[in-house]
């Protein structure tokens, strides 16, 4: 029997095949994710440029089309070439560990994200809990970075970030409890399935305050404007990553943008019906574009892109909150509102209010 790749594959032992398949799936998720991160930076600079009446990057590129498209690649090459500077008296082990933790947390959460019905790396029943656990790990990267840098500005940024993430993690958790109540499941795939139908059937309407609070808390959790006190430029220069250069900085950058995409995708999954189409009925009848109008991964991508645009819009038009004002907003506004709305959702679920809650749990 000739040795073709197919027979070679069949002759491999069972556990090795499983591991290889999982590794292949991880690559399939990670490569588009990292590409999206790269091009999100370009989109950010372009969109903010247009808002600020300027061009944004428009030089780097070849093939003569849409100059500026190679900017992220050029940035990456620059970051790779730059020297990694060690601050004096920095704790070298922790100094390297911090960006790794931040990136691991931002990327690891993608394991349970369903891209379409059944298109998921790990269909875990406790998916929501896994997301909460993994995303909260990200703050360790920031705290350790601030501590290990042996710099006052970095320490202040790390302290602020820790306090801020504790406050917003609670509001975020309560918003997720609302989703759990409404969907009756912690599994992300089943949460999306519970929203089957058109725009009206999605959870953003019955859970509207939770939807808004979840997204704002997500902005705060990823340390983006107007909640970017951990790296407030005019106050503490760059906060926790002030001492990082070269790839250390680039990894923090990757982690921040991967976390942004994660929060946007989660908001789309839990409140905007994930991969469901806003035109459920016309889908099959329309010729040619019927496939596009039906449910599919492209709707999830579109909804994620919408929330990512909101991120950039916020950054372009809001001043930064002061640290104590962020705390006040988190503890005194968001947490009480979420708790009150949880009661409302609980009553609605018990009363089986149509069209969201009249199906059997």
């Amino acid at each position, binding site marked *: 029997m000739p040795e073709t790749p197919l027979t070679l594959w069949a002759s491999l032992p069972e556990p090795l095949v499983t591991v290889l398949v999982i590794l292949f799936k991880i690559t399939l998720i990670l490569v588009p994710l990292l590409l999206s991160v790269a091009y999100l930076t370009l989109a950010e600079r372009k969109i903010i440029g247009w808002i600020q009446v300027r061009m944004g990057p428009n030089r780097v590129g070849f093939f003569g089309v849409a100059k500026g498209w190679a900017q992220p690649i050029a940035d990456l090459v620059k970051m790779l070439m730059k020297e990694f500077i060690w601050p004096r008296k920095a704790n070298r082990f922790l100094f390297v560990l911090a960006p790794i933790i931040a990136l691991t947390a931002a990327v690891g959460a993608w394991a349970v994200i369903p891209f379409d019905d059944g298109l998921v790396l790990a269909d875990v029943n406790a998916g929501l809990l896994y997301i909460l656990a993994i995303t909260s790990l990200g703050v360790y990267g920031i705290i350790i970075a601030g501590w290990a840098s042996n710099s006052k500005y970095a320490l*202040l940024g790390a302290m602020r970030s820790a306090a801020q993430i504790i406050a917003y993690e609670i509001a975020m958790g309560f918003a997720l409890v609302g989703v759990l109540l409404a969907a009756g499941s912690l599994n992300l795939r089943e949460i999306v399935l519970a929203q089957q139908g058109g725009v009206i059937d999605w959870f953003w309407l019955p859970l509207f305050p939770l939807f808004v609070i979840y997204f704002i808390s997500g902005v705060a959790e990823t340390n983006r404007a107007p909640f970017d006190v951990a790296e407030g*430029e005019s106050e503490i220069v760059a906060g926790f990553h002030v001492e990082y250069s070269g790839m250390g900085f680039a990894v923090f950058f990757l982690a921040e943008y991967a976390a942004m995409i994660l929060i946007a995708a989660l908001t789309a999954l839990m409140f905007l019906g994930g991969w469901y189409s806003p035109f459920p009925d016309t889908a099959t009848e329309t010729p040619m574009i019927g496939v596009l109008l039906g449910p599919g991964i492209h709707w999830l991508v579109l909804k994620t892109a919408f929330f990512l645009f909101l991120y950039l819009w916020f950054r372009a038009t809001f001043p930064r909150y002061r640290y104590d004002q962020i705390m006040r907003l988190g503890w005194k506004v968001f947490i009480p509102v979420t708790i009150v709305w949880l009661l409302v959702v609980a009553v609605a679920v018990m009363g089986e209010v149509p069209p969201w809650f009249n199906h059997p749990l």
Partner: protein
Amino acid sequence: MSYHFQPDRSQYPQKKADGTLDIDLASGKYLKLWQGPQHPGITGNMSVELTVCGDEVVEGKTHVGYLHRGFEKLMERRTFIQCFPIVCRVCVPEPDFNEYCYAAAVEELAGIESPERANWIRTLILEMGRINSYLMYLGGQAGSFGMGVIGQWTTYARDLMLDRFEELTGARIYHMFILPGGVRDGLPEGFEKRMEETLLEIESTLGDVYDVMFCNAVFKKRAVGVGFIDPELIDPYGVTGPNARAAGVASDVRKDQPYLVYPELDFEPVIGQDSDIYARADVRRRDTLVSIDLVRQMLAKMPRTGPLMAKIPNVLHWKIPRGETYIRGECSRGEYGYYLVTDGSGYPRRVNVRGPSYTHAVALLERLIVNLDIADVAGLMVSLHTYPPEIER
């Protein structure tokens, strides 16, 4: 809703017998934090040494001297005309004021009267410079709170005004257009029309700035009630200009002691009342509109014919008799003054520049900075509208 920052003072360091604060850095409760001289939140080359307790400033000390160029001393060995390239570099964003004050001081000591038409053009340039300076301030104020978009918009509007400057004087930043005895040239052809287009564009930008910055809830949260200057401090600390007007004190040299053609122009200085960062920003925004109106009035009333320069002696051998004078005027940051002493030789004996930045950024800043959050230090510095180059002439 007005929100005033009220810290818990029981945690604060007590005063010792000699009046200094009892701060024990070894206790770990306080932290020394230097903002500047290289810091994105500082308006220029100066630094503030903060002692913080948590995120709150308990003591601030300003340090200047990073940009000392010795201009006043340099001028003592320059002929009167050679001083002109130097004076405009004292304050970068609004250089014309230095030219006007110095030229007026030289004229007064030499007994020269500048012609009527030159006075109109001088006033026009001063008001154009004021608009520029305010536009730059608005961008900086928003930028100090992390709002980049205003800076880009106002920079665009300011650039249009720089085009008008280039048309009129031949230079964009350092014009050196005002000389002792008058101005270099008259208005170019079609200047009024292009100026009107620029003013309309600036007004529309200011409208956008009002919508995006002044009506923004987060900006109000950051600016209202922060950096309060007590009206009682206005006199002892020598606060002038928009900083004083925002506290409700009508202090405007253009009205109190009119110079150039201001008596013939119809305007009211803008008065605020809350004396916080928001009030100061708002006074400056409204003052820009007043300046735009003044430019329009001047272009309408200005004489188009007449001499531009009075007769001045050969500048290479120009000796001015013994005397001293102080010329004051209202620049965009407050009262600006030049004290000039001559001793009958070809050089000034002494030139002293009274810039408003010195009084605002050193003593007043140290007083206001206490009890603020670290995050507000940059916003406060910008709101006093100070330029470190002007502190260290």
